[in-house]
Every structure is written in C-alpha cells, then in structure tokens.
C-alpha cells in the first residue's frame, strides 16, 4: 500500500510501483535537482536557510519547531565536526508516515539531508531508523549506496568541493530514542536516555559536537521547498502552518493509511479520504496527533481542521500527525490502559517521576479495567499526573500523563462506571466486533 490519498500532493507524487524508491525513478521525478542547483550555484548557506525559513516548514516529528530557525542555531563558523541527524525512529503509536517515506521516497530524505549538511556546514549525517522496520533500514542502506555511487553523497559532491557522507543507524526497540537527545545517546552506543537541556544539540550534540536533528518528513520536504521556493511551499498550507503534511490514519476507519493533505484541511475531509468509519459506526473519539496527544471527543473533532493551530484549539496537539480513530465500540478504559502500559514500558527509567509514576499510572488504570478500581482512583490518577508533568528531563512523562488526564476529563463517567460496576459500559462482544479481526478482509 502506498500513500493512499493526497490533496495537493508533493511528497507522494508519482509514488507507485515497486521501483519508486530507486535513484533512477527519483531522478526522473526531478530528484537531486535541488541539491545540484545549490551546489552548482554555490548558493550561500544563509540563503538556503532563508528559503527554509520562508517556507515556515515546522518540524514534522511532533514538536512543530520551525525548521529554518533550528538550522540557524547551528554555529556555522564552528571549525570542528558538525552533524546532521535524521530522526526516523518512528514509534509513537499511530504514527507510520516516515515508514512510507523511507519505503517510497528514501532519496528525498538523502537529498534533504545533503542540502541541510551544506547549509549548516556539516560533513556527516546519520539517519536513525526504527529497528522494527528492518526492511526499510536495509532499503535505506541500498539507497545510500546508489546515492554515493552517483556522487550525491560522499566526498566532493558533484565537484563542488563540499563533502557530505551519510550513514544509517538502526534502533532496536526503544520508543524513547525518538526523543532527539536519547537518539544521539543511542547513536553513541549507549542506552537511549534523554539528556538534560541546555546544552542543546546545536551546541552539544552527537559526540559533543554541534548537531541538528530533524524528522524524516522534514528532511524529505527540503528538496521540494528548494525547488518550488519557500513562499510557494507556504502557500500550500495556512498561514503559520506551511505546506502539506502526511497524516497517518489508523483505528476504526475503512482505509487506514497515510494521506498527504495541505495543513488546514478539515478533519471530516481526511476521515472521508480514509474511507469513513468502519462498518458505518459512529465516531466516539479521536487522538489527532499520536498517542501522547490528548484525546478529543467526536463532536469537537468533526469541527476541527488538521493544522497546528486548529488541533490546538480542539484541545490537543497535531504532534506527528497520527490520527487514531475510535468508534463507539471502544472501551476508553481499556484504550487508556494499553497506552499507559506503553508509556510505563517505554520509560527509560532515568528520572524518578517518570520511572515510578508511569508504572503507578498503569497499575491503577489496569486495576480499574480489571474490576479492581477504588473510589478515589480517578483523583489519585490526576494527582499523580500533576506530579509527573513538567518534572522530568524529557517529554515522556508529559506524554504519559496527557492521555490519562484527557481520557478522564472527557470520559469520566465511563471510568466511574468501571469502578462502581467492576465492568465495562461497552459489552465485551461489542468491543471485539469493533476490531473486525474475524470479519475483515484485505
């Protein structure tokens, strides 16, 4: 399955067939022309960064930090080694857009990173790829070989005198490595434990050197921005929300998958593109930005637009653009239990509030789901989340807390029912039917 649908597509243009990921195919689609132009024109580094700034491209990994601004933090005159790192450690439940980029368009990432390396004076880059998508790690290595052979990476790119080499590094099963400083630690051959900031990677990054880390989709967007111009790219989205974005739609829809749409597209349109609700059932809730984003009830969601500001207004975060759709067969306690388990399991164990707090949260939600809830549990959960949030080195503690807070906020009755009646409001067979496991065909 390729990228299923697109409105005003860029990243996903021409991505069909088995060979789309090959260098030849990419070049046919206009690939590497941006890098070639930058190098041949010896475009000043500042100009490249300016173009990115003009596009108002915001980091596609989840935090939405303006990319051009981030690039400008790199000390361009720093004489020693500098690094450009791509974060393809996509493991936030609901998110699977980078997987498709790596699968169908790896050279756009390579080209984007090479341009970034040029703009920031970095001669080396790493792409950190989620260990679970092993086939795509291998594919990326092959794409790197193609690019190296063609002179798009390596030393003295296209005779420009600029050298940039790029390597793939695989993860091996740790969600936290999607956090940029944990990812750096992981490349250094350590446990993926996030670093306290400051210092920020731009001054103390990989191996202690200035480093810029961007998401796969962010880098993949760079060639398009350089080709069409920053302003034109911005036009494709709403003000302050430039460009198109890949949305990963999962859960109770008929056609889960990736959809490239301009930022600002109504959620209803996206849901329609994804084939509507599975079995024609009613939307109950949606997590619009990956599992750490607060859950949004159906009514609010149906009126929201898919952009940073729109989702923020709906009380959540656009995050990585992972849209988890839940219909009326969903038990919200069970859903939260699974998410809480995830954050407990993936806590790196470094900071006290997260290490201890995430397990506490899970244990209490687990009790409630299993008919062992106690009066006061919901207040306890809320209190524990307040003690975690904002008290840890990285955002995993917050990410674990926000689902708990939002699920209880919007579905408190359902939780209270579990505690009081020791069972779920949604009958188990109804829940089971919702998954469609025994009825679905591909």
């Amino acid at each position: 399955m390729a990228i299923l649908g697109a409105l005003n597509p860029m990243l996903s243009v021409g991505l069909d067939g088995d060979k789309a990921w090959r260098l030849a195919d990419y070049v046919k689609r206009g690939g590497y022309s941006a890098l070639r132009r930058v190098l041949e024109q010896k475009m000043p580094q500042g100009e490249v960064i300016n173009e990115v700034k003009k596009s108002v491209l915001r980091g596609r990994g989840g935090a939405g930090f303006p990319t051009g601004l981030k690039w400008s933090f790199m000390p361009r005159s720093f004489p020693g080694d500098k690094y450009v790192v791509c974060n393809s450690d996509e493991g936030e439940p609901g998110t699977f857009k980078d997987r498709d980029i790596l699968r169908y368009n790896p050279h756009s990432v390579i080209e984007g990173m090479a341009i970034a390396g040029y703009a920031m004076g970095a001669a080396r880059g790493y792409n950190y790829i989620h260990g679970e998508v092993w086939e795509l790690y291998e594919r990326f290595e092959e794409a790197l070989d193609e690019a190296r052979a063609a002179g798009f990476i390596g030393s003295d790119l296209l005779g420009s005198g600029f050298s940039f080499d790029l390597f793939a590094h695989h993860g091996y099963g740790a969600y936290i490595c999607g956090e940029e400083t944990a990812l750096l630690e992981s490349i250094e051959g350590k446990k993926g434990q996030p670093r306290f900031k400051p210092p920020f990677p731009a001054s103390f990054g990989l191996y202690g050197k200035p480093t810029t880390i961007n998401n796969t989709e962010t880098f993949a967007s760079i060639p398009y921005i350089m080709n069409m111009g920053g302003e034109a790219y911005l036009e494709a989205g709403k003000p302050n929300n430039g460009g198109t974005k890949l949305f990963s739609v999962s859960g109770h829809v008929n056609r889960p998958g990736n959809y490239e749409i301009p930022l600002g597209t109504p959620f209803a349109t996206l849901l329609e593109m994804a084939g509507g609700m599975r079995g024609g059932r009613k939307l109950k809730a949606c997590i619009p930005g990956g599992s750490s984003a607060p859950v949004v009830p159906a009514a609010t969601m149906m009126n929201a637009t898919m952009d940073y500001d729109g989702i923020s207004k709906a009380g959540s975060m656009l995050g990585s653009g992972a849209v988890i759709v839940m219909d009326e067969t969903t038990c919200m306690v069970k859903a939260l239990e699974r998410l809480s388990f995830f954050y407990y399991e993936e806590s790196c164990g470094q900071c006290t509030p997260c290490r201890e707090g995430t397990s506490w949260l899970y244990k209490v939600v687990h009790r409630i789901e299993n008919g062992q809830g106690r009066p006061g549990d919901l207040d306890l959960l809320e209190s524990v989340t307040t003690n975690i949030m904002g008290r840890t080195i990285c955002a995993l503690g917050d990410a674990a807390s926000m689902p708990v807070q939002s699920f209880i906020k919007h579905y408190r009755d359902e939780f209270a029912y579990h505690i009081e009646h020791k069972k779920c409001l949604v009958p188990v067979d109804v829940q089971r039917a919702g998954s469609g496991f025994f009825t679905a065909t591909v």
Partner: protein
Amino acid sequence: MEIEIDGKIAQVPDGSTIMDAAQQVGAYIPHFCYHKKLSIAANCRMCLVQVEKAPKPLPACATPVTNGMKVFTHSELAVKAQKGVMEFLLINHPLDCPICDQGGECQLQDLAVGYGGSASRFQEDKRVVFHKDVGPLISMQEMARCIHCTRCVRFGQEIAGVMELGMANRNMHSEITTFVGRSVDSELSGNMIDLCPVGALTSRPFRYSARSWELSRRRSISPHDSIGANLTVQVKNNVVMRVLPRDNEDVNECWISDKERFSYEALNSPARLGRPMIRVDGALREVDWNVALDYVSHALKDIVSNSGAASLAALASPQSTLEELYLLQKLMHGLGSGNVDFRPRRRDFSADGKLGGVPWLGLQLSEIKNLDAVLVVGSFLRKDHPLFAQRLRQLAKKSGKVSLLSSSGDDSLINLHAQLTVSPADLPLALAAVVKAAAQLKNEAVPAGLDSIDPCATSQAIARSLLDGEKRAVFLGNAAEQHPQAAQLHVLAVELARLTGATCGFIGEAANSVGGHLAKALPTALNAYEMFAQPRKAYILLGVEPELDCYDPQQAVAALKGAALVVMLTPFGDGAAQDYADVLLPITPFTETSGSFVNTEGRIQSFTGVVRPLGDARPGWKVLRVLGNLLALAGFDQNSSEQVRDEIVPAGTTFVAGLDNRVSDVPLSLMVTAGELQRIADVPIYFADPLARRASALQKTRDAVAPTARMNAATLARLAVTDGVPVRLRQGNGEAVLTARADETVPAGCVRVAAAHVTTAALGEMFGAINVERA
C-alpha cells in the same frame, strides 16, 4: 553573574549552576543524584526549584545561572515538586528503616522526614529487585532500596576509570548491576558505598555490626601510602568498626582507597600481639613488659660490649610514625651504631649523602590538576597509589598529557599520552632516551654518556609533551626508588626536569617516606640492604616484616636466622616472626597511638589514638623511650609524642622545611642490558603492608589472589613452558613454584613475580636475575 536565591544575592562565575550558587549562599536544596565530584545526571529530580519566569520547576543541579535570575528553593511550587518527587522515590522503596543497615545515616530517610507524607497513597505491590554478589567489599543484598541515582555508575566511569556497575534494563525495572555475576574490583570501589544515598550499596565487612548512632567518629590519618589520606575512624566499645574518608580537598578530596577503608579489619584480627614474648628454649613465651624490656636492654648492652656497636642494626617500616622513626635512630646512635634505615625495599643507596635535601613530590597534591604534562617513571601506578593515580586520571581527562615509563603494562585506567614499557634493566636507558630527546628538541648539549642512545618516537613524544605548557612534572614511582639503579634514575629525572623546566619528585612509597628522612632514620654506616648482606649479631625491627618487606627477603631472613638477637616491635605476633624473632614487643598500630605522618608533599599530619591499646600493646614511641631510659641514653625524656615531634620539626609546622630533590656528584653510568631473564616484582596492593596483609575482606578480593609467574608469549616459548603450567623459579638459594601465566604486558626477557607474598618470600632480589623452568 548575579543571582538571587531565597532573597539572598550571590555573585557566581559564568557556568555555575543554581546548586553551586545555593551552596555559596548557604541555601540547602535537597538532592540525591547530584555530587560535587561527579557529572550532572539530573535524574533524581529532588532538587527542583522555582525560577522566576520559568513555567516549570527546574533542577538546581543542572540549570545554569543566568544573570539576574531569581530562584526560590522553598516556595510553594518548589516544595510541591520536591514532595512529589519524594513520594515517587518512596513508593517502591522498602519502608523498613529500622532493619536497614543504612538507617540513621540515610539521605533518603533524612529527607523523607521533611518531604515525605505520613501515609502512602501507593497501594500496589512494590518492586522486587534481586540481590547481587559483587565481591567481599560491597554488599548489594538490598537492591530494592536503590533509588537509581546512578552515583555509583558515574563514580566508576569518572573517578575509578572503570565502569564496573551499570544500570541495566529500563523503566521501573532499571537496576544497578555488574556485568552478569562479576565482582567489583576497582581499588577505589568502597567510595561507592559512601556515595550511595540509601542502603543499596553497603559495606560488606561492616554490615549489621553497628548502628551509626552507636559510633563515635574520630579523626585519623591513613598509615598506608604516601598521600596521607584523612580518615574518620568510627569506634564502638573501643573497637574500630569502620573507616571512612574525611574530606580534605588538598589531600584525598573526598575519597579513600579500599586499602585505607578496609584494612581496619587487621586491627581486630586474632593475629594481634597482646603481650610481650621472649624466646625461651626455642619457644616464644609471654612475659611481662618489664621482663621483656629488661631482657632487651641487657642483651643489647652485652652485644655492644662483646662485639661492638657495629654489630647492631635496626630496620624500620616507612609506615612507622615520625616519632617512632626518630626515637629508633636516636637509640641506635646512642648505642653507637649507624646501622639504621627505614627503606627496606631499596637496593641502590649511591645517592645517600648526595641529596640536596629531603626527597619529596616536588609540588603539592592540589597542584596536580594544573599540570600540563606529567611523566611517571617506574610505577605500578594504580595499585601503588590509588588516589594519586586518580588525580592523574582527572588531569588526563581534562587536557593534561600523562605519560608512563615503567616495567608494567598494567592498565592505569588513565588516558595516557604515551606509554613505554621496558624491562627493569632498560628503564634507565629508556629515561635517558627521553632526556636526550628533550636536549635535542631544545638544541642543548646532550648530557655526557648518552651519545649512543637513539630516542624512539615515543621518547620524543614524551619529551615534547614535557616541553609544552606552563607546568609540568616528572615523578619517580616506587619501582624507580626500589630499582638497582635508583640513583641513575634520580639523576636522569633531575636532568630531564632541568632541561624541560618541569619539577622533579618522588611519589613516595609509604606514609612516612618523607618523614623518615626528617627523623634521620638513615644509615651512617650499613644501610637497609648492607645490614643483611653483611649479617649482624643483633637486629631491631620496627613494624617491618623482612620476609615480605625487604628488597631481598631471602638474604634478610638468612641474616635474621643467624643473628644472636632479633627484637621485633610489632602489632602482630604471627607469621615468619615466629621463626626468627627472639623478642616480640607488642606495639600499637596507628589507631592506638598518637604520632605523625609526613606525606609526599611534606604535609605533616599528626593524629591521636582513636581506641585504647589492645591487651598490653603499647605505642612504639613509648617502648623506644623506655628502652632508651633502660639503656641510660641521653635525650629520652619526652612525656608525649608531641614532645618527640617538636624535637624533629618546629611546633605549628604544616609543611616541613628542607624538601629538595636535587642530587649531586652521582656520575651517570648507564649499563647495557644483560642477556639473562630478569624479575619484575610488583608489591601487590593488599600485601603491601602488615595491616593490609591481615585484612580479611581485602584478602578475598581479586587483587589478593596468589602471585603467578607472568611472561609474554615469546618468553614462555623460549622457556618451553605454556600458560597454566607450574614453573620453578630460582633466585640464589631460594625457589618458589608458581603457575606460569601468559601476559603480553610483560616486557620481553622478563618474568613478573610479585614480592611481599609468602609464596615468593623465599626468592631474592625484586629486580634481579631469575631462573625459570618447568616444575
């Protein structure tokens, strides 16, 4: 930069953290993972404070101060955050302080009083963490108590230089462990016990033997190596129960070595001598002090009158107190004998009488961190001087270039700039090569006698490093002082220092290596080697065990066995003394006497006894004083060790005068390597002195395994032996059978056989020729 903390203004340098600033203004911020000597982890989150304009509380340990910053360490926001963290720390922590060995001296317990709740909201099952066996020194039986601050892990990585503990797994299942079943072997490991803020890592020998509030804390000084680490000795019912470091940034910082921490077990060992003994009809019998002293004084007088004073000799341990050393030499000189020494492991005395003053480190320990380059010559650095090595490790980590020229390829766990490992016989030549390289680099005349030397690239790199930067130093280690050509090494080091502008110094073997010189416990006739090479009629041994402590134990023991009288002043009555001693006088170890040690930087540190003498044991200085009286010698009327000390150095001295490493009139004469097999003898860390030898937990460590005969593959092949087979080692009339071990760090043509161990006590010279064959 200016910062306001709880309304108090502080000026702090750029790069300071809120924690630094808080300490400056005296504001206490609760913390666990933060430690002044370790990198910042910011993981416990206990030090969260409120910072004006910051939306979230920030960790004081990791947050850099910005100009004009306003910090509130006890505001509602800060305290709420701190209490929140405390609750998390306690949910999985066993709440059984009364049965925890750390109870009463636990940071978590202390802070829980201020920040913990009175009841737990955590109703779930607590985490279970399995215990680990990590060796005889550290107990990790209670790992459920661990709060994951990672101080122990960082200590290993950053201070000990070897990562033996790590935090495995993740999430709430994170746990501190060694690599599957390994022991913790660092010679600094005990410091992790101090660093552990809870009862997870505790002292295995001390475990459950006392409660912290039952212990009285007394100040003392380490009697082991030449650093003079400051100690707190903890005492219960007149028994030393535990030894801890006492902070002295200029000496031992906040650390001590395991030898210093755990040797106290010997103080309470059954080997302690409780009463004087005299050999009667071949057997040692307990007698009263007056009988023993009477016997000794008469016997000494008889020998002097019958055979002359020159037939007496006295040898002291360099770990004796300044006062003991002084009175011993005074006694000998009073009797008319110049045969007195305190350097039992020395072989070459040709610089005696030609020194500019008392040999010492050449600079203060606290200056090491400012050095740009260091060369250490002839040292088993890490095991000879754990804390000195630690300082060099920190220096090398910063930017100092540390080089090592020795006969040991042991991993110093220091990021060395250069390392040359040569046979003992080649050591002077190798140092000469560095001297020559330095002269060439400076375009100065090459000192006479070095013409034929061709400096290798490493020698040149070392010479170059010593020519760069502001402050540099050349240090001679124990093996350089014990070396058969010690004076040559000394002369070369002085020359190298002169050429490069570095300081030259001796690291010093023992607690009173400098003090012995000040006490003038030096020969005017036969030295420590000659007094056995030319056997005497009578010997007085002060705290020394010649079969383990002498350069040539074979020769020493033979002389002692042939002597008419051997008087030992010793805390211990076991061992070879039983064979050769005629009189055993029980003197007290450092915990039961007052006295002084002068450390390698010339710092005089006096101490008092921390417990009463065991049995009838008496302070050595008192025994010597009474002997002086019985022998009717002049100048033995001191009433306190302080009076003795004040005769040696002026009262109120901190750093002694007369320190000088210059040497004159020792001509350079470098010898070319002989073709025969040479011995390299290290003094294993836990056999280095009588206390360590009898410390039972230390004796169970990996550093205390019995010596082997280590050779490189080429040497093994030449001798037609293989790794693991028994070999017979011969020196002179003595032999030992040890297991041969392949060890590529041993230089060609050498066999490394430890000294100071009963299994090798029959052998001869530490750095002499040795014969090895299949047993």
